[in-house]
């Protein structure tokens, strides 16, 4: 007998340094569980390739060797580097994966014996052969982009396994796919144990960045892991920024830029057909951007 009762399978595993949750909706629990297992496997693979902490990851191999010799990387690492380069170019370097040196100094990332970071995204050379080389000693970290990338890969796998509707949430960077819309709560910028509000999403990814869990003092100056790549200055406002985009990697990357640019990010958001929401310290929205309302003149 064929049953059409809608069921939900929901699983959570510690990956990418955070909690990754997958929800899949359908009618066959065995199929849903199999699809979720497969999706966790690709997330684990992204984790292995892009972890700053794992000495065997592509990211660590690049940090160790790419200044001395060209390093061959996995196709996915290549794709993330390529996208990071594009984000850096489009944001004049506000988005920059090479700020890891600063993050090590502030102890957000573990110490390395390798050369500490100098230079910028412009010193990463993506050779046509699929190899990567650094022109200067660099430390890269995919903290601002890998979670989004992993979410997108997981959604791909779920769809390939015939899951029509679901959600993948990697520690707050999430993507909703399928016919159902979902309500997603946004953490309060100054009181992260409260929700400030919620957004409703369908076929969309969102990412929220805030410094509430990470802000601290370093030599009497406020530091946080969200840096403006142009100045290496840390974002210290107790605001949160939320970006909605077609894919999670874009949403993830753009939140970091929005921290630095706020309202001035409008043309950039329009370029990526992304929406945005800035919540102030008191939890109230101070700016909201919708690409269909505030579209740039040429579209």
């Amino acid at each position, binding site marked *: 007998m064929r049953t059409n009762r809608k069921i939900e399978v*929901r*699983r*959570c*595993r*510690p*990956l990418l*340094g*955070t*909690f990754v*949750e997958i929800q899949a909706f359908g009618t066959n629990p065995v199929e849903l569980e199999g699809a979720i297992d497969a999706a966790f496997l690709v997330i684990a693979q992204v984790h292995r390739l892009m972890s700053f902490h794992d000495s065997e990851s592509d990211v660590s191999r690049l940090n160790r060797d790419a200044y001395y010799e060209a390093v061959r990387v996995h196709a996915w690492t290549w794709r993330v580097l390529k996208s990071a380069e594009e984000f850096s170019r489009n944001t004049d370097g506000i988005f920059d994966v090479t700020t890891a040196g600063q993050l090590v100094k502030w102890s957000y990332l573990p110490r390395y014996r390798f050369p500490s970071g100098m230079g910028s995204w412009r010193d990463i050379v993506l050779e046509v052969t699929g190899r990567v080389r650094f022109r200067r000693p660099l430390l890269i970290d995919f903290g601002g982009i890998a*979670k989004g990338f992993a979410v997108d890969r997981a959604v791909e796998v779920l769809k390939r396994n015939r899951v029509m509707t679901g*959600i993948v*949430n990697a*520690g*707050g*960077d*999430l993507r909703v796919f399928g016919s159902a*819309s*979902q*309500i*997603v*709560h*946004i*953490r*309060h910028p100054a*009181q*992260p*144990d*409260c*929700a*400030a*509000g*919620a*957004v*409703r*999403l*369908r076929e*969309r990814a*969102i*990412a*929220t*960045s*805030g410094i*509430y*869990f*990470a802000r601290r003092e370093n030599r009497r100056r406020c530091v946080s892991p969200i840096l403006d790549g142009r100045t290496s200055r840390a974002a210290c406002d107790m605001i*949160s920024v*939320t970006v*909605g985009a077609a894919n999670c990697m874009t949403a993830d990357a753009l939140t970091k830029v929005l921290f630095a640019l706020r309202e001035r990010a409008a043309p950039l958001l329009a370029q990526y*057909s992304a*929406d945005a*929401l800035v919540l*102030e310290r*008191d*939890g*109230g*929205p101070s700016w*909201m951007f*919708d690409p*269909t309302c505030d579209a740039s003149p040429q579209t």
Partner: protein
Amino acid sequence: MTKSEFVFIALPISAVVAPSTFAVQYLTVDQAQRAIFPGKSLTAAPVKLAPAQRKTIEQASGVRVLHDEQQVWRVSGGGWFIVDEVVGKHEFITYAVGLNPNGSVKQIEVMDYRETYGGEIRNENWRAQFVGKTSQSQLKLDRDIKNVSGATLSCRHITDGVKRLLAFYDVALKRS
């Protein structure tokens, strides 16, 4: 092109003031066993640690042991299934770890995740009007938190917990 309804719904003030929790039960013990060791039979084999064992585990892992008793199951054909708990500043988590016969980690599944939402928002300006966009919804958002977007909560406590369990394996399970 698909278009999301990206509308921010500010919570009614009562919803924010009232403590609420984000809590999910992902798996029962039984379900976690089947998820990690499908088709295997498991036998309960709880372990009570002697003070000396506790100390050895703490020294080997660098993580404090809070409970003397550990919920352990022996897996048919080799391997172990362990249920453990960790408590963080914001979260309380029950999780299961499957160990291969050689003691390496086979799989980790979060069984219960609870995040406390207790804060009270004193400043009422959060209601600040937002032209044309903020909508006061009738939804019982506070009671129905299913998905949360926000800066990443680290899973360090679980990472530490697993480190402790691997030391526990060396001390209490390896030879048996």
